[in-house]
């Protein structure tokens, strides 16, 4: 079963939920955790994995042989991203705009363009606490999009694992879509504030559109705002767990310590959370 944890927005406690769930379940099941938040991966700070394999993720970018090039301009015309421009003096490639689609090299009538690999990030694989199979993607600084890294990371999904937990990037952009693709369940982590409500609505919209079942975890739960409960009622997306607003929890987080490793009642709660998810997936 693949569970993707998302949040509509960063900082809601997505990583807390993903790492605790992985750790608690690993006592009973074969668990894999993939950190797909490639812009700011943090799960490793809580699970201290031993990384034993690092793979580079590359895209193919064009390299122009200026002596063969006749400056006909076909490549620039074909490129939808403005990543290649033809000047009198020669052809220029703007690497950071290139998506690596290959259109320019396919169209060039002189075959003046070859494609060379350019690293945009890495995938790290290893083993964390309790034999949790661990994987994370890291986007290089200055690269625009992590979608390809997430795609490569997901190729390492261990089909023999009982549970695969994917820590998605924040927001509802294309990289979140990539993290959700193929998931059996989406766990929406939110906070009981107008911000949280706004963001969870967007996330729920996306998940519904993709036809994935979902449930809500309310983090930093406190009195005073019942918008999430109303939303749960009106949308039919159940609230599966509430984590209270508690400085003790915030403090453990700040030290990079798993909540459920320190406070045993949370071990029970995360076990129950999984039970409910299993039921929802099977109906």
């Amino acid at each position, binding site marked *: 079963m693949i569970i993707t944890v998302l949040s*509509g*927005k*960063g*900082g*809601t406690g997505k*990583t807390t939920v993903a790492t605790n769930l992985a750790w608690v379940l690993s006592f009973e099941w074969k668990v894999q955790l993939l950190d797909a938040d490639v*812009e*700011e991966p*943090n799960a490793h*700070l*809580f699970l201290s994995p031993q990384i034993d394999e690092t793979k580079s993720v590359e895209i193919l970018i064009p390299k122009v042989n200026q002596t063969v090039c006749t400056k006909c301009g076909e490549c620039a015309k*074909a490129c*939808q*991203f403005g990543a290649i421009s033809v000047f009198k003096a020669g052809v220029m490639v703007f690497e950071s705009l290139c998506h*690596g*689609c*290959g*259109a320019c090299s*396919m*169209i060039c009538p002189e075959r003046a363009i070859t494609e060379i690999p350019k690293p945009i990030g890495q995938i790290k694989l290893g083993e964390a606490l309790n034999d949790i199979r661990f994987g994370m993607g890291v*986007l290089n*600084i*200055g*690269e*625009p*999009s*992590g979608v390809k890294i997430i*795609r490569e990371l997901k190729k390492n999904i261990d089909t023999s694992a009982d549970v695969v937990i994917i820590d998605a*990037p*924040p*927001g*509802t*952009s*294309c*990289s979140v*879509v*990539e993290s959700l*693709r193929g998931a059996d369940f989406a766990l929406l982590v939110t906070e009981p*504030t*107008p*911000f949280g409500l*706004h*963001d969870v609505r*967007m*996330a729920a*919209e*996306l998940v519904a559109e*993709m036809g994935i079942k979902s449930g809500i975890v309310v983090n*930093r739960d*406190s009195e*005073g*705002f019942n918008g999430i409960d109303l939303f749960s009622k009106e949308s039919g997306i159940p609230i599966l767990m509430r984590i209270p*607003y508690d*400085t003790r929890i*915030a*403090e453990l*987080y*700040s*030290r*990079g310590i798993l909540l459920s490793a320190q406070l045993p009642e949370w071990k029970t709660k995360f076990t129950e959370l999984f039970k409910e998810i299993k039921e929802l997936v099977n109906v």
Partner: protein
Amino acid sequence: MIQIAVVSGKGGTGKTTLSAALNLLFENNVIADCDVDAPNLHLIFRPIIQQKYEYFGGKKAVIDYTKCTSCGVCEKFCRFNAIKHEEGKVTIDPYACEGCGVCVLKCPYSAVNLVSNKAGEYYVSMAGNRPMVHAKLQPGEETSGGLVAEVRKAALKFKESGRDIVVIDGAPGIGCPATSSITGATYVVIVTEPTASGFHDLQRIVETVRLYRRRFGVVINKSTINPERKEEIASYCKNENITILGEIPFDPIVNTATVNGVSILEYPESPAVYSIVEIFKNLKKELEI
């Protein structure tokens, strides 16, 4: 126009709280919400929309089935696995399609076209007596950097009506929307928190801001939750010669303000407000205004 971008590397560090407060403390400013993926500033400012613009991001490939013979050539060349060939029918997944046009080039039957795709909207509004520009990206869209650029452009237009500062609530992360919020910024305010992940994210955003050669300073939010981590951040900043604009103590009133959907400045007795005013002063000093 002076452009101040508030960023954080990651959401949830208090970026919106700080940028909302700074927007209220400046006087002749324009408010810009560049967190187009999950915009929240409008929940505080409740702007009245004056103009609405559609935003067309990248294009998407669409198959004309009157011409398509299901030969599958397009599927072979699409590097983004956006084309599926199943049960004799070829379909394009709009979420995966990057609009590169390779399928258009390769289809032997001219059965594929690229069509402009509405990726979101942006709005020019009034929030009290301040102009505000904000946006909404459609879920699942990728071209958020472009929408961020539109928001910034629309905000900068207020220069003509005599506004001299824009305070931008930046996009989280270090990818294209985030860098799009800092390009052209006069000054970048990085908000961080003293947690294991906060420090990790801080280093990545600092590297990013440096890559774009922007001037910047750091604000340590919730500074009292972990004194050791705070020291770690402070000494990192010192070693790296990074200005610390100030610290905001952990303050439950911030949460109350968020729950009620108002700015923290509505609670003048809050310790956070005192710190934010100090940060505001330091920021003005840095900008020499």
